[in-house]
C-alpha cells in the first residue's frame, strides 16, 4: 500500500526544532557561517523575544554563550525537544500492530462482497490528544500521508503493492467508511473523495500503466471497469463485479496477448495490478474521430496591453512555446484574434503553399454581431504554417505598438473565437489587460470600496453579466474551454471573467500590477504560459465516479460542467487541478470494504481515445472511533474549502467563515460527546483524534485566508482569484496555499540547501510554525505559499549575512519588493538560491512564484502583507490560533 506511514518520527529528530522553547540549551547552530552571523556583536542585542509571540524564540541566547556556539553539534542539544510524544498512526507501535494483524491473516473470509457483521481487521487506532496542550501545533504532520487504508490481504486478486490508489490520485476524507448513513451523520465528518486523475503536467514525469490491447472488461450492469479488487469465479471464467455484485463473463482475450499472439497470464494485466491505469479505447468510445488539439489566443491589443508590455511578452512566449505545444501527430491548430474596440483576425496561409503569400490582418469593427471575415486560414495547422506563424508573431507587437485604443471587446472576441473553433472544439486562451467595456458581455466598474468588508461584498464575487454563464454553456456544447490570464492594473471584474474557466474546465490566472519592464514579472508570466501550453491536456473528457452499491455520488466540486447528475464534462481536461466529490450513503453497506472508481474518458492531445481509471478500496466500519481514527485531515480540508468557496459565491463570505467554524465545532463536540469517556465538564480539555490534530489549524488558516478573511482592505479581484485557486488546487498545494511553508535560513542545518545524497534533490530546511515568535530580528526567513515567496530580512541582520546572500555591504542597500537573490559565489548564497529554486520547482503545477524581499525595517505595507501569512498570530480581525482553540473549547464545553 502506497499510503503506508512514512517514518516521520525519525525524520523529525534529524533537525533542530526551532519552534520549541529550549532557551536553556545550546542553540542548534550547525553551519559555521551561520555561527559566524550569530556570534557577531549585533547578535547579543537581539536576545529579546519578539513581541507578540507566545514562545521564546529558539535563538534567544545571551551573548556570552555565543563563544560556545561553534562547537554545537547537530543532533546533540535538541534531544528531547519534542515536547509531546508523537501520537497517531505513525507511532511505531500502531504501525507494527497493523502490520502484524495484516500478516496474521485475520478475517481471511473477508473477500470482496462477503457480508461481514463486524469489521474483521483492526483498523487504525484512535489516539487522543489535547489540542491546547500541544502547542505549538506539530506542523510536520501536514506533510504526513493519510491514515493507511487497511484491507484484508485477500482484497486484491494480484496482491500487487500498487493495487490501491496512491493518495495523490485519490484520497477519501474517511479511510474507514461508516457502514450506515446514521453513523455517518452521527460522526459529523464529511464523506467525500478528492480526485486528481493526473498527477503531473507531462506523462513522462509520472508514467501510468497503459492497457493497450483495447480489451476493456466492464460490468454489464453498472459499467464499472475491472480492477484489482474483483473476484474471479468458476475457475476464472467469470468475474464478480465489486460495485454491484453482478457476475460477468471474462472476455476470451483476457488470457491471450493479441498483440504478440501468444497465451498470457491475466494476473500480469495492468488493470489487475495497478489502481491507476489508462485504457486505450476502441472506436465504440468515440462520438467522432479524435479531434486535434486547438489553441485560439485572444490577445488584448488595446493601449493597456501595449503600455505594460503584455502583448509583446505574450506573443514572444507563444512563439517560444510553439515547439512545446503537444503536436506529436502534427495536427495541432493555432489561431489568433486581437481585440480592442474592433476584432482583428489574422489570416495565416500555409507556409509550403506559396512563399509570396504573407499573413494578413483583417479588422472587423462589428462587435455586436461578430462574424468570421474569411472562411479559412484563420485557424491553421501548426506544422503546415509554422514559418508564417513565426513570421506573424515576430511582427505582431510592432503592428500595434502605436495603438491608442482604450477599449476591450473581450466578449465579442470570445464569441468570434468560439465561432472559429466550435466545429472542432479546443482551448481559448485569453490574455487581457483591461475590463471588457464594450461589445457583447461588457462589464462595469463595480468595485466600490465601501462594499468591502460588508455583507454586500458577496455580490462583488458573483457574476455581473449572464453572458459569462450562458457562453460557458455554449462552450460546453461545442467542447470549448476558456482560460483567463488577467493583467489589469485596475479593477477587471475577475469574478465575472472567472465564471468562464470555472464552467468550462479552464483556469483563471491573475497577475496584479504586472509590468513587463520588471524582469521578474516577465519571467513569471512567460514560464506559466509556457508550462500551461505545453502540458499534455486531454480533450473532450467526461468524468464519472462509481461506487459500490449503497454509495451515491452526491455533489461535484471543481472547474467543469455538470452535464447530468453524475457526469462532469470537461471540454479540455487540465492536469493541474483536482476535484472533490461528495458521497452519500443510501443503503447500509454490508461489505468489510468497498471500492470506488473514477473514470475519465478523454482524447489525448496526441489523438488517442483513452480512459483513465482510478480505483480505491476503503474499509468499512460500524464504530465511530474507527471513523475518526482513519479520517484524513487534508482531504477534509479540501472538502471544507470547496464548500466554503461555494458558500462565499452564493451567500457571502460571512456565511463561508461561519460554515467552517460550525463544521469544526460540531466535529469537536461529537468527538467529546461520543468518544471521550472522561473529562466531561465545563473545564474539560479540548481533545481530538491525533490524525485530525492539524484540522483546527487548517480551518483557522482558511478563515484567515485572503479569499475568505474578514477585511475591508482586500480588492474583490484578489479575493475572486484566491477563491479560484482554493477551489482548484490539488490537495498538497492547497495545504501549502492555506498554511504556507516557513523556513529559517540564517541558521539552517548543514544539509539544507544542498542536494541530498540519496535523491540528488535539494533538501529544504525544517519547517517552522507560522508565528512572529519564530522570527528573530537578526534572521533571514522564507515563506512559501506556492504562489508567492517572501524572503524576510530581520532588521538586525548582520552585515556578513547580508553580504553573503545579497552581495551588498549592509541591510540599507538591500532592494526590497519583487526581486531576485543575486547569483554570488559563496555557499550561503548558493544554498539560499537552491532553496528558492526548489520551492519553485514543480512538475504538476504551472505556477512560478515571485520572490518578494521584505525588510523588517522597510516598507510597512510589504511587511504587513508578509505578516498576514503568520497565521498562528492574532490579526486585527481574527483570533490567534491559541485564542481560536480557546474559543472552540468554550463552545464545545457549553
Amino acid at each position, binding site marked *: 500500500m502506497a499510503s503506508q506511514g512514512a517514518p516521520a518520527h525519525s525524520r523529525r529528530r534529524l533537525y533542530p526544532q526551532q519552534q520549541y522553547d529550549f532557551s536553556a540549551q545550546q542553540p542548534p547552530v550547525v553551519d559555521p557561517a551561520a555561527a559566524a552571523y550569530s556570534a557577531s556583536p549585533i547578535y547579543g542585542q537581539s536576545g529579546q523575544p519578539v513581541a507578540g509571540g507566545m514562545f521564546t524564540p529558539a535563538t534567544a541566547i545571551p551573548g556570552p554563550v555565543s563563544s560556545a556556539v561553534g562547537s554545537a553539534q547537530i543532533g546533540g542539544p535538541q534531544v528531547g525537544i519534542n515536547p509531546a510524544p508523537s501520537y497517531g498512526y505513525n507511532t511505531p507501535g500502531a504501525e507494527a500492530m497493523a502490520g502484524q494483524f495484516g500478516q496474521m491473516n485475520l478475517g481471511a473470509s473477508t473477500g470482496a462482497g462477503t457480508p461481514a457483521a463486524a469489521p474483521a481487521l483492526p483498523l487504525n487506532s484512535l489516539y487522543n490528544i489535547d489540542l491546547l496542550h500541544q502547542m505549538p501545533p506539530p506542523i510536520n504532520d501536514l506533510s504526513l500521508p493519510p491514515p493507511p487504508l487497511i484491507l484484508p490481504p485477500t482484497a486484491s486478486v494480484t496482491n500487487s503493492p500498487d493495487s490501491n490508489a496512491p493518495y495523490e490520485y485519490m484520497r477519501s476524507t474517511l479511510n474507514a467508511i461508516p457502514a450506515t448513513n446514521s453513523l455517518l451523520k452521527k460522526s459529523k465528518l464529511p464523506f467525500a473523495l478528492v480526485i486528481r486523475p493526473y498527477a503531473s503536467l507531462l506523462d513522462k514525469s509520472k508514467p501510468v500503466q497503459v492497457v493497450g490491447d483495447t480489451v476493456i472488461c466492464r460490468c454489464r450492469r453498472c459499467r464499472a471497469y475491472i480492477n484489482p479488487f474483483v473476484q474471479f469465479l468458476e475457475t476464472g471464467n467469470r468475474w464478480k463485479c465489486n460495485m454491484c455484485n453482478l457476475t460477468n463473463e471474462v472476455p476470451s482475450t483476457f488470457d491471450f496477448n493479441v498483440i504478440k499472439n501468444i497465451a498470457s497470464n491475466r494476473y500480469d494485466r495492468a488493470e489487475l495490478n495497478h489502481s491507476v491505469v489508462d485504457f486505450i479505447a476502441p472506436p465504440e468510445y468515440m462520438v467522432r474521430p479524435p479531434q486535434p488539439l486547438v489553441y485560439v489566443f485572444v490577445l488584448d491589443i488595446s493601449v493597456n496591453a501595449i503600455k505594460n508590455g503584455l502583448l509583446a511578452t505574450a506573443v514572444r512566449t507563444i512563439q517560444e512555446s510553439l515547439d512545446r505545444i503537444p503536436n506529436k501527430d502534427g495536427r495541432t491548430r493555432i489561431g489568433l484574434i486581437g481585440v480592442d474596440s474592433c476584432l482583428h483576425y489574422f489570416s495565416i496561409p500555409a507556409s509550403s503553399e506559396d512563399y509570396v503569400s504573407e499573413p494578413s490582418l483583417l479588422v472587423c469593427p462589428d462587435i455586436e454581431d461578430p462574424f468570421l471575415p474569411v472562411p479559412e486560414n484563420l485557424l491553421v495547422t501548426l506544422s503546415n504554417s509554422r514559418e508564417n506563424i513565426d513570421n506573424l508573431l515576430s511582427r505582431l507587437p510592432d503592428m500595434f505598438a502605436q495603438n491608442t485604443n482604450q477599449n476591450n471587446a473581450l466578449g465579442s472576441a470570445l464569441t468570434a473565437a468560439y465561432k472559429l473553433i466550435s466545429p472542432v472544439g479546443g482551448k481559448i486562451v485569453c490574455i487581457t489587460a483591461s475590463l471588457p467595456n464594450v461589445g457583447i458581455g461588457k462589464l462595469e466598474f463595480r468595485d466600490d470600496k465601501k462594499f468591502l468588508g460588508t455583507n454586500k461584498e458577496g455580490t462583488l464575487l458573483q457574476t455581473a453579466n449572464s453572458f459569462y454563464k450562458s457562453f460557458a454553456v455554449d462552450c460546453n456544447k461545442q467542447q470549448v474551454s476558456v482560460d483567463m490570464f488577467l493583467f489589469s492594473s485596475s479593477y477587471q471584474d475577475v469574478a465575472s471573467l472567472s465564471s468562464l474557466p470555472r464552467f468550462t474546465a479552464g483556469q483563471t490566472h491573475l497577475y496584479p500590477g504586472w509590468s513587463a519592464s520588471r524582469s521578474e514579472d516577465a519571467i513569471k508570466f512567460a514560464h506559466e504560459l509556457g508550462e500551461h501550453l505545453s502540458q499534455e491536456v486531454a480533450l473532450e473528457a467526461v468524468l464519472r465516479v462509481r461506487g459500490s452499491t449503497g454509495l451515491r455520488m452526491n455533489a461535484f466540486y471543481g472547474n467543469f460542467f*455538470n452535464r447530468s447528475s453524475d457526469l462532469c464534462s470537461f471540454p479540455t481536461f487540465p492536469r493541474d487541478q483536482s476535484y472533490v466529490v461528495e458521497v452519500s450513503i443510501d443503503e447500509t453497506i454490508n461489505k468489510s470494504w468497498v471500492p470506488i472508481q473514477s473514470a475519465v474518458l478523454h482524447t489525448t492531445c496526441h489523438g488517442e481515445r483513452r480512459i483513465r481509471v482510478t480505483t480505491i478500496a476503503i474499509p468499512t466500519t460500524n464504530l465511530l472511533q474507527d471513523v475518526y481514527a482513519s479520517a484524513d485531515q487534508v482531504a477534509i480540508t479540501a472538502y471544507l474549502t470547496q464548500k466554503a468557496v461555494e458558500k462565499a459565491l452564493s451567500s457571502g463570505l460571512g456565511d463561508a467563515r461561519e460554515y467552517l467554524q460550525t463544521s469544526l465545532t460540531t466535529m469537536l463536540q461529537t468527538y467529546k460527546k461520543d468518544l471521550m469517556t472522561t473529562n466531561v465538564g465545563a473545564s474539560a480539555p479540548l481533545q481530538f483524534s491525533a490524525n485530525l490534530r492539524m484540522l483546527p489549524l487548517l480551518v483557522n488558516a482558511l478563515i484567515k485566508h485572503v479569499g475568505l478573511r474578514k477585511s475591508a482592505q482586500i480588492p474583490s479581484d484578489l479575493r475572486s482569484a484566491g477563491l479560484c485557486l482554493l477551489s482548484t488546487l490539488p490537495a498538497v498545494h492547497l495545504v501549502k496555499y492555506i498554511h504556507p511553508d516557513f523556513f529559517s535560513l540564517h541558521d539552517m542545518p548543514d544539509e539544507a540547501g544542498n542536494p541530498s545524497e540519496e535523491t540528488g534533490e535539494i533538501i529544504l530546511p525544517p519547517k517552522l510554525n507560522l508565528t512572529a515568535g519564530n522570527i528573530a530580528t537578526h534572521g533571514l526567513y522564507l515563506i512559501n505559499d506556492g504562489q508567492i515567496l517572501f524572503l524576510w530580512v530581520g532588521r538586525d541582520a548582520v552585515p556578513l549575512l547580508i553580504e553573503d546572500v545579497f552581495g551588498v555591504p549592509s541591510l540599507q542597500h538591500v532592494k526590497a519588493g519583487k526581486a531576485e537573490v543575486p547569483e554570488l559565489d559563496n555557499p550561503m548564497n548558493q544554498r539560499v538560491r537552491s532553496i528558492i529554486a526548489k520551492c519553485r520547482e514543480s512538475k504538476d503545477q504551472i505556477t512560478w512564484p515571485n520572490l518578494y524581499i521584505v525588510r523588517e525595517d522597510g516598507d510597512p505595507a510589504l511587511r504587513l502583507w508578509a505578516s498576514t501569512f503568520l497565521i498562528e498570530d492574532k490579526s486585527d480581525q481574527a483570533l490567534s490560533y491559541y485564542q481560536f482553540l480557546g474559543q472552540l473549547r468554550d463552545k464545545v464545553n457549553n
Partner: protein
Amino acid sequence: MNGPACIFAFSLVISAIEIFTQIFFTIMFSDLESDYINPIDLCYRLNNYVLPEVAIHTFLGTVFLLNGYFFSLLINMPILTFSINKVYTNNYLLDATDIFKTVRNHKKESFVKLGFFLVFFFFSLYRMIMALVDADNI
C-alpha cells in the same frame, strides 16, 4: 353572471393554469434528477415559462386589487412578492451551470406553489359559487 362571480371564475382559470405549470416544472426537475433531460435543455425550456408565470399571477393580483378583494390579494401576497422580487433582482432564470446544486430548492419552491394554488383553486371555486348563489338570491 355577475361581477364577483366573473372575477373568481377568472381566478379559477388562473389557478388551474398555475397548477399545471407547477406540475410541469416539478416533473421536469424530477426528470433532471433522474437524468432524463440534460440541464441545458431543461433551462432552455423552463426559462420560457418563468416570466409568463409571474406575469399572469401579477395580473391576477392586480385584478383583485382594482376590484377591492383585499383578502384574496393578501393570501396571494407572500408568493407574489417572492416571485416579483426574483424578477426584480434579476435571478429568476434557471442557470444551467449550477442547476444540480439548486434543483432541490427549485423543486421545493414548485411544490409550495403547487400546494398554494391547489388551495386557492378551491377557495376561488367556493367564492365563485357563493357569488352565483348570492346573485340568485336577489
